[in-house]
């Protein structure tokens, strides 16, 4: 597929790298030649220097025969205009744009063919905030991801030393979860994938990936981890866009405090937010944290745009007694560094955003994609179309499917009903199939499986 990516920032850059490895034809456009040079050194892609919304620049990037334009520059307006031009002048079929300002998103009928022809709007801030909210709602989970409009969740759990499951066999989990609408789809030990066999004994530090109906998801985390109380008190450090959005999402259900360094920003935050307590100060100020009872805080989220400040304030909060710390970290190299124990959860905004973009880049009718384990694994929600003749999945039992060995089907959403996958389950047309793929390199095989053959009209 021929894809033009506008803007080589953090999201644009990592998307380009990730897609280039999948043998797509990528052109990256940015006004800064240095950034482009750096990326070109690491991956096989074409780069164009220039202003992203100028028609000549787009033409030079090959907009004439591109399948897709992904506008990810820092400016909402540039992104919108670029999509408009791609549509009007080059008839690009799929246009994706990052639009941050919620004001644009509040009005229906703005992003339609006649007005602003953008097919998919992406707001990284919103995605990251929702991602963090999911994590806070499920204490004990490493990752919580939504499928089928939130009806199904993928939950990743690392067993801690005090879990009652330690030393038990995998079959014990299945016994415990018989009526919980859930499925164990993958298991890692020391970063290595294990095949799920009934008699494997569980050890501390094992990472388990479950797929479950949303209504039951909370039971699973509490059952497996046992010890974690539900989260009540949250401190957010950094009142930027993500911090503000997260506070707005959380404040009806949690007791939220938000620390912002800038006095003017703190004042305006206090005017926007309803119940959140806005504190002005440095998130790494020990006295401030002590004064606000950091030792009884359930979750501390460091969400400033400074990786180092996030890591340090999270470490401080952890030492002062915060039960769980999360930190927004942009640099991939830092993520591996801190996840070894200093910080409970490192959140990579690129990973979260790329998942949302991948869904539109995958072939076949793929509704949602989440990038997992630093991009090595993927969870995919695909729709089965056609009939027994034209499709390779419809009308077949799950164990008959020619899935790669590293892939497993977790659940199926039929109409509004969530069905947990069993080997004998037969897939029907229009089913949403949720697949965990441990090895991303096999993604083409999965895509091919869900593509309807040419005879299907």
């Amino acid at each position, binding site marked *: 597929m021929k894809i033009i990516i506008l803007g080589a920032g953090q999201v644009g850059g990592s998307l380009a790298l990730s897609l280039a490895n999948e043998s797509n034809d990528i052109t990256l456009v940015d006004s800064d030649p240095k950034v482009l040079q750096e990326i070109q050194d690491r991956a096989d892609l074409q780069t164009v220097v220039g202003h992203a919304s100028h028609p000549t620049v787009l033409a030079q990037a090959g907009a004439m025969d591109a399948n897709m334009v992904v506008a990810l520059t820092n400016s909402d307006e540039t992104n919108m205009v670029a999509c408009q031009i791609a549509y009007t002048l080059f008839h690009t079929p799929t246009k994706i744009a990052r639009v941050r300002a919620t004001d644009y998103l509040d009005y229906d009928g703005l992003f339609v063919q006649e007005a602003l022809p953008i097919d998919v709007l992406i707001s990284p801030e919103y995605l990251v905030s929702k991602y963090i909210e999911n994590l806070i709602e499920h204490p004990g989970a490493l990752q919580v991801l939504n499928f089928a409009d939130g009806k199904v969740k993928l939950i990743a759990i690392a067993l801690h030393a005090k879990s009652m499951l330690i030393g038990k066999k995998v079959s014990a989990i299945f016994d415990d979860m018989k009526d919980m609408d859930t499925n164990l789809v993958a298991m890692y030990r020391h970063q290595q994938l294990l095949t799920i066999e009934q008699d494997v004994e569980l050890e501390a530090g094992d990472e388990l990936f479950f797929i479950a109906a949303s209504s039951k998801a909370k039971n699973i985390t509490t059952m497996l981890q046992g010890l974690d109380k539900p989260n009540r008190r949250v401190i957010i450090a950094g009142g930027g866009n993500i911090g503000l959005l997260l506070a707005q999402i959380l404040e009806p259900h949690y007791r939220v405090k938000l620390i912002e360094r800038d006095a003017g920003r*703190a*004042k305006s*935050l*206090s*005017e926007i937010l*309803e119940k959140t*307590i*806005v*504190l*002005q*100060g440095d998130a790494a100020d020990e006295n*401030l944290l002590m*004064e*606000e009872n950091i030792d009884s805080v359930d979750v501390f989220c460091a969400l400033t745009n400074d990786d180092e400040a996030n890591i340090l304030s999270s470490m401080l909060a952890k030492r002062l007694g915060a039960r769980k710390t999360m930190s927004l970290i942009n640099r991939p190299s830092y993520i591996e560094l801190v996840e070894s124990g200093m910080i409970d959860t490192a959140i990579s905004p690129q990973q979260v955003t790329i998942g949302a973009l991948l869904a539109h880049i995958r072939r076949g009718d793929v509704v949602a994609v989440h990038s997992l384990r630093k991009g090595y694994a993927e969870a995919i929600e695909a729709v089965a179309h056609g009939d027994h003749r034209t499709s390779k999945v419809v009308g077949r039992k799950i164990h008959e499917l020619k899935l790669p060995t590293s892939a497993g089907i977790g659940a199926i959403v039929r109409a509004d009903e969530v069905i947990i996958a069993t080997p004998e389950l037969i897939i029907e047309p229009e089913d949403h199939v949720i697949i965990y793929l441990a090895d991303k390199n096999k993604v083409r095989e999965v895509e091919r499986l869900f593509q309807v053959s040419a005879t299907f009209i």
Partner: protein
Amino acid sequence: MQPFVILRILGQLLMIFSITMLPAVGVGLFYNESDSVDSLAMAFLATLITGFLLWYPFRNYQSDLRLRDGFVIVVLFWTVLGLFGSIPFFLSNALALGFVDSLFESISGLTTTGATVLTQLDHLPYSILFYRQQLQWLGGMGIIVLAVAILPMLGVGGMQLYRAETPGPVKDNKLTPRITETAKALWYIYLSLTILCALSYWLAGMTVFDAISHSFSTIAIGGFSTHDLNLQYFDSRIIEWVAIVFMLLSGANFGLHFLVWRHRSLPHYWRDDEFRMYCLILLASSIIILSVVKFHDTLSGPLFDQITTVVFQVVSIGTTTGFTSDDFSVWPTFIPVLLIMLSFIGGCAGSTGGGMKVIRMLLLFKQGLRELKRLVHPNAHFAVKLGKKPVDNRVIEAVWGFLSAYIGIFIIMLLMLLASGIDQVTAFSAVAATLNNLGPGLGEVANNYSDINAFSKYVLCLGMLLGRLEIFTLLVIFTPVFWRR
């Protein structure tokens, strides 16, 4: 300051005001009351001629008004009209009132206070009674414009809050013609409420004369009646409920009525923080007083009648109307004192009600909460909000200033009355009842103010004006800064 322009406007005001005496003359002719017709007609001529003499020499002085002119005109409106409005009382032989008493009655009418020095109302000429009621109604009209359009513009006591919502002018301190548009819309609402109220009273069993007269004093939140017994005279629960409904409506912000009318949507009422608070205060007070009344077994009769009496009294005093349907001053002491305290809160801003206004109390309450929260979180920022909108600190400062001025004025006036030899209960309630534009007090002034000394009457006249002009509007005239060019 542009004295000639102000004089011209004052002249025009007096001429218009003189015309409003004519309906009373008509009533006098209809009932064949030669004495009061004479006094009203003479007052009409005197006012008209004075107005003409003020207006004619300066009629060509046309220029835009400035902020300071606004203050002077507002103050003159109430003082000068109060003075000229007293002429019919002074001249009438049936009343035989002195100058102080006439002035007191006139100012009490125009400021919609409802405190009276007249006794034996039932035997007075109809034309005088009608004139009295109409005086309140006209005062109410002036108050609506004052409260909704002018005070927000002058920014008195935190009322700049309403500046954004009123279609009134803001920029470069000029009174632009848009104020007339606002005033017109508000008067339509005022007039329709009055007509509705009069019809309801009539249907509930009043005579035509009583229905019209009482609708005037109800919508104006005044409290004058044509009977010594006030609303108790009618002894009708239906009439009391009609009064409750219309007092409640008149005690709400007319700007809010305007909004509801323009959007044709009732939920706007409930979305307004001040209106919600206003209803809650009145509801809570009714419940408290009802339980005290039940506990002491004060009232007899069926429960519904008792509820009616209590709710009527709470709404009447709470909105600072001052109607009475029972002599509440002899109820267990807790109740009259609570009711007088309630009148300090008063109606909503932008209504015909008096007191300090619900919105200010709401802001002070929220500000108090904010101080408490700040003690717990010294580093936190908290915003005081109305609805979802943050309130500027400047507004809250102004409200604090207003509260302290209100208390200060109250104490000074209380001491002055005590010095003149009035007992403490009477003095306290009389000052509260006039400063809050309520009307009836306790003790000696429970029914009327005829028995207190002349000095106190002057003080109370000043109190009514101060209360009506939200204190600062009047005080600012007495500051040297104001007169400096």
